C-alpha cells in the first residue's frame, strides 16, 4: 500500500515537473506570487472615467446603429 502511494506521488511529481500547466500551480512560489500580484491589481478601484466613457459612447452611437449606418452607406 505504502509502496503504491509512493509510486503515485512520484508519478505526480514527475508530471508536475514536465507539464507547463503545473509550473505555475499552487505548489509554485512563483505561481502564488503571480496571482497575488495580479489579484491586487484586479481589486484596485476603477476610476469613474471608464463608466462615463462607456455611457458617452453609448449615447453617441448606440449599439446596432453603427451597423445600420454602415449598411446604409454601402447601399
Amino acid at each position, binding site marked *: 500500500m505504502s509502496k503504491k502511494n509512493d509510486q503515485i506521488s512520484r508519478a505526480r511529481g514527475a508530471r508536475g*515537473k514536465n507539464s507547463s500547466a503545473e509550473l505555475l500551480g499552487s505548489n*509554485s512560489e*512563483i505561481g502564488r506570487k503571480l496571482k497575488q500580484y495580479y489579484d491586487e491589481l484586479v481589486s484596485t478601484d476603477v476610476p469613474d472615467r471608464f463608466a462615463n466613457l462607456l455611457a458617452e459612447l453609448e449615447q453617441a452611437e448606440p449599439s446596432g446603429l453603427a451597423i445600420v449606418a454602415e449598411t446604409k452607406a454601402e447601399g
Partner: protein
Amino acid sequence: MEQAPTFRVDLLAAIPSLRAFAVSLSQNADRADDLVQETLVKAWDKQASFQPGTNLKAWLFTILRNEFYSQMRKRGREVQDSDGALTARLAIHPAQHGLLDLEDFRKALQLLPEDQREAIILIGASGFSYEEAAEICGCAVGTIKSRVSRARSRLQEVLDISGEADYGPDAIATQVMGSSVS
C-alpha cells in the same frame, strides 16, 4: 438595440481585468489606463465584429495587447525580445525571513522581456488556457509554452529561488505524506 446595454455592462465588468493586464504589460499605471480607455473605444467601434458567445475577455485582451505594441512602435521603442539586453544579472534576495516579498516580485517581473511577461501573466494569473493565450498573442501554443517556462526560470534566477519544484516544502511534504500513509 437590445444588445446595447448588455455589451456596455459586459465591457464594464471586464475593466478590472483589463487594467490588471494593462499594468502588467506597460508597468505604468497612467499608461495602463490610457490603454484601457483606447481598448474600450476600439471595442465599442468594433462590437459588430465580436461574435456573441465567444470569449469577450480574450477578445478585449487581444485589442489591448495590439494597442500596447502599436503604441510602443510609434514611440520608436524597440520591442524587447526574449534574448534581448535585459538579461540583468541582478539578483533580488528574499528578505530575512526567507519569504518572497511582493515588492521584490514586482521588480523581478519588470525585468522580464514583454513577450515573456505577458505570457506568464496570461497563463499564471489571468486564467487563460495556452490556446487562448496563443490566440491573444497571435503565436503558436508552443511559443507561449516556451515563453512561460523561460519567464519562470528567469524569475527563479532573479529571485534566487532554486528548483522549488524539487526541493520546496510542498514537494517534501508530499513525499513524507506519500510514504507515511499506509
